[in-house]
């Protein structure tokens, strides 16, 4: 085989290789593209030809979904609940991780394994007791009923990642800071916490994506249409607009767009956070 033939062979192989990968990547993208173009059509256009673009852009589908379908309110609720839950998770998990990884006490490894056990526990096994408990103290249909379980179930993985990071922090610096007259709490808040920026970003992204997309807790603890989150609102759409398909499509697009927009800008960090979060756990 001459050098030229070899080159040609490699080229054909490469073209074939990229054709396969490109086709696969289109199977990921096309359904979303299809969803978007049909979400701005009329119902009859959708039924006549689901492949083509509509004659005009039906923005009404979105306004209907946003206002009368309560997608707007749910959007706000989802953002609020996820945001508050992530903030609380950051504080509770970083303080606990600090106590577990750097302070010296007998039960620290036991407490760590107790937290790690949580990674294996399915949320389903806590639903009924939490529901009856929340009912008794009257917080069903309040944001707190969702924030509490979101935080509690975010702690295991977050503590695992953070304590792994904090363990590696050089103790010489810690000693120097303490000798300079800083308290343990001062050392944590002023030195260690700010230096843990990277793992804190990781757990924030990991948890935010999970909370923003969560369905089961929200379905049970926050079912009030004015309080509930996007995933629950979307499931209700099916019944509410059962014949008005394009409004349903528009609602789904509304849920997908923020995720994809953020993902386009932060894809590397998001991929890393989500995979690190579950592999470590």
């Amino acid at each position, binding site marked *: 085989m001459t050098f030229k033939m070899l080159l040609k062979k490699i080229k054909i192989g490469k073209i074939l290789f990229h054709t396969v990968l490109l086709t696969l*990547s289109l199977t990921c993208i096309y359904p979303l593209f299809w969803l978007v173009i049909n979400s701005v059509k009329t119902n009859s256009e959708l039924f006549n030809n*689901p492949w083509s673009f509509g004659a005009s852009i039906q923005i009404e589908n979105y306004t209907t979904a946003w206002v009368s379908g309560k997608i707007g309110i749910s959007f706000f609720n989802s953002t609020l609940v996820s945001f508050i839950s992530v903030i609380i998770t950051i504080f509770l998990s970083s303080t606990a991780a600090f*106590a577990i990884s750097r302070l010296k006490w007998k039960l620290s490894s036991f407490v760590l394994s107790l937290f790690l056990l949580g990674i294996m526990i399915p*949320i*389903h096994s806590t639903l009924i007791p939490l529901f009856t408990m929340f009912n008794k103290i009257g917080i069903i249909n309040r944001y707190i009923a969702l924030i509490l379980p979101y935080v*509690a179930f975010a702690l295991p993985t977050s503590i695992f990642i953070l304590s792994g990071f904090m363990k590696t922090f050089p103790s010489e610096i810690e000693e120097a800071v303490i000798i300079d007259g800083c308290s343990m709490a001062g050392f944590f808040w002023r030195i260690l916490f700010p230096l843990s920026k990277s793992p804190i970003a990781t757990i924030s992204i990991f948890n935010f994506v999970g909370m923003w997309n969560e369905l089961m807790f929200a379905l049970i603890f926050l079912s009030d249409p004015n309080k509930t989150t996007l995933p629950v609102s979307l499931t209700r759409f099916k019944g509410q607009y059962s014949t008005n*398909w394009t409004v349903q499509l528009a609602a789904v697009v509304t849920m997908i767009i923020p995720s994809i927009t953020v993902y386009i800008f932060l894809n590397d960090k998001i991929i890393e956070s989500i995979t690190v979060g579950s592999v470590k756990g």
Partner: protein
Amino acid sequence: MESMLKNKKTILSFVLPGLIVYILIVIIPIFNTIYHSAFKWNILGSKNFIGLENFVNLFTRDKIFIKSMKNTFLLMISSLVVQTPLAILLAVALSGKIKFKRYYKTVFFMPNIIASVAIGLLWTFIYNPEFGIINRFLEAVGLKSLTRLWLADVKTVMPSIIVVICWQFIGYHMILYLAAVENIPKDLREAALIDGVNSVKMLWYITLPLIKYMIGIDVVLMATGSLRFFDLIYVMTNGGPNHASEVIASYMYYKSFRDYQYGYGSAVSVVLLALCLVIAYILQRLFRSEKLEY
């Protein structure tokens, strides 16, 4: 210094807030669920101790529960059989220096950041018998006889759901394997290439053994993930038609929050919890292998 590290007040003030929330919301409810699984307890509040009767009923009389167990294991096994090899192949294909690598990675992973609820709805549109593109496509290429009511037909509902699960998660598993494959030292592969090893042999004798630890991690993730499956099922079929696509989690939801049989629902979730722990333990032992250091 030592005394500051052992200061009880500091330790408690740091660990207690998180620990209390965790114990109240996760640990105590688990024991509560196990306790309540021994009761006949419905919405009216009458609570009667019946021992293991709920469990006996589940496994001997409840055909829907048996069906949901079967479906759950079907999801688990199909995920393992279909997704693992494809994810590994994709990872190997994308490893090293290739063109458009970042584009492929980003696109394949993308379905994972979208809510399962949104993906479930998107695919109910795609499967829709009237405007959905699957039936429309089959009609267009002259295969009208193959069109189905995909999600409303007892025979096609599970395969249809499995397709969606693969679509959503293959990219995720691919990323895990990609990291493992790229961890293999270059000189190892180069040495094999010089020895004239072809790519199939390279995959079988070099790549696979060296990413075995990741296969172990991934299999546990897939298995416990499949056991917890709920969102897609709830949105796409709600367990139907006629419970044909019921899984353990959706059945637990149905019994507890539609039938309001809290005792029975608790028993179902105890089974789910036990399966999660036992299967994770077994798989971890099965795939136990040290992460290699080079």
